[in-house]
């Protein structure tokens, strides 16, 4: 049991380092509260953003938490693979640079697993080869498929 846990832990740690560095240029890693007996302590998720000091994930800013959480989520794929990811506006708190970085990361990741992401951000929407537009008419929802080369305006779909 401990061997299986440590193997998963190390894989997760390695993958989080990769994903986070690509997304931010900073560093993230895991630390065990009690390395000798991992089950008697917790796991710290540490992150050091560019220009900042290393911190545990729970004391970061709103946008920083979203970035670290997505890194953790995607890294989890290596220890417990899912066929698809459903993400509802995970980019809402991100500034333009990190939103763009996330859009690119999700595109790259989509060769490993299917990604279905809801976004209102131009930089994420315009990067995707497949865009679905949802709109409301007379109290009911409809969906249209928007081609990639269409300049997507989140609002025009009401037409």
């Amino acid at each position, binding site marked *: 049991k401990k061997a299986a*846990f440590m193997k998963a832990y190390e894989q997760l740690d390695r993958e989080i380092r990769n994903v986070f560095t690509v997304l931010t240029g900073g560093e993230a890693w895991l630390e065990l509260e009690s390395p000798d007996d991992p089950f008697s302590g917790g796991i710290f998720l540490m992150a050091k953003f560019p220009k900042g000091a290393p911190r545990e994930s729970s004391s970061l800013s709103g946008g920083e938490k979203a970035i670290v*959480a997505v890194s953790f989520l995607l890294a*989890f794929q290596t220890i417990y693979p899912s066929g*698809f990811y459903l993400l509802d506006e995970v980019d809402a708190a991100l500034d333009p640079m990190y939103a763009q970085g996330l859009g690119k990361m999700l595109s790259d990741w*989509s060769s490993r697993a299917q990604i279905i992401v*809801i976004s209102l951000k131009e930089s994420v929407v315009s990067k*995707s080869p497949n865009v679905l*537009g*949802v709109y409301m008419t007379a109290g009911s929802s409809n969906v249209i498929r928007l081609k990639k080369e269409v300049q997507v305006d989140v609002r025009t*779909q009401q037409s």
Partner: protein
Amino acid sequence: VYITKLTLKGFKSFPQHPVSVPFEPTINVITGPNGSGKSNIMDALRFVLGENSPKALRHNKMSDLVHDQSADENSFARVSATLDNTDRGIPVDEDRILITRELKRNGDSQYFMNSRRLSRNQYLEILSAAHISYDGLNIIAQGTIQRLAELTPDEKRGAVEQYL
């Protein structure tokens, strides 16, 4: 296993005539104005995967999930998802698997896999073989992504242990 199509009929803001949503195996971005029905699509995916808590689908009781503009008593909500199973993640020897959940006005649900009716437990058990569950880490509801970073160290360890 991934999702190739989702069909909604009478589920939340979706009307009684079926609306189909095609998905690519790579990346799919869903966008649209506030209140157009984007998160309801996500709720429909969780519903068809077995989510049974109305609160998690943002209503007080399951019968509220039926489109409220369909006045007639016999109206119901139905969501189907077509899954690509070429990797045989789901232990059924078919390339495509159609999963369907129907909800009557009285709150009762029926579950179908490739048009065969199953009990809720059989349905969930078959899906779990492919690591598919309505409350998996791979499904993030609107406004909740920060929570993963706010887990306590013990909860983080628990998340890793749970999946071993």
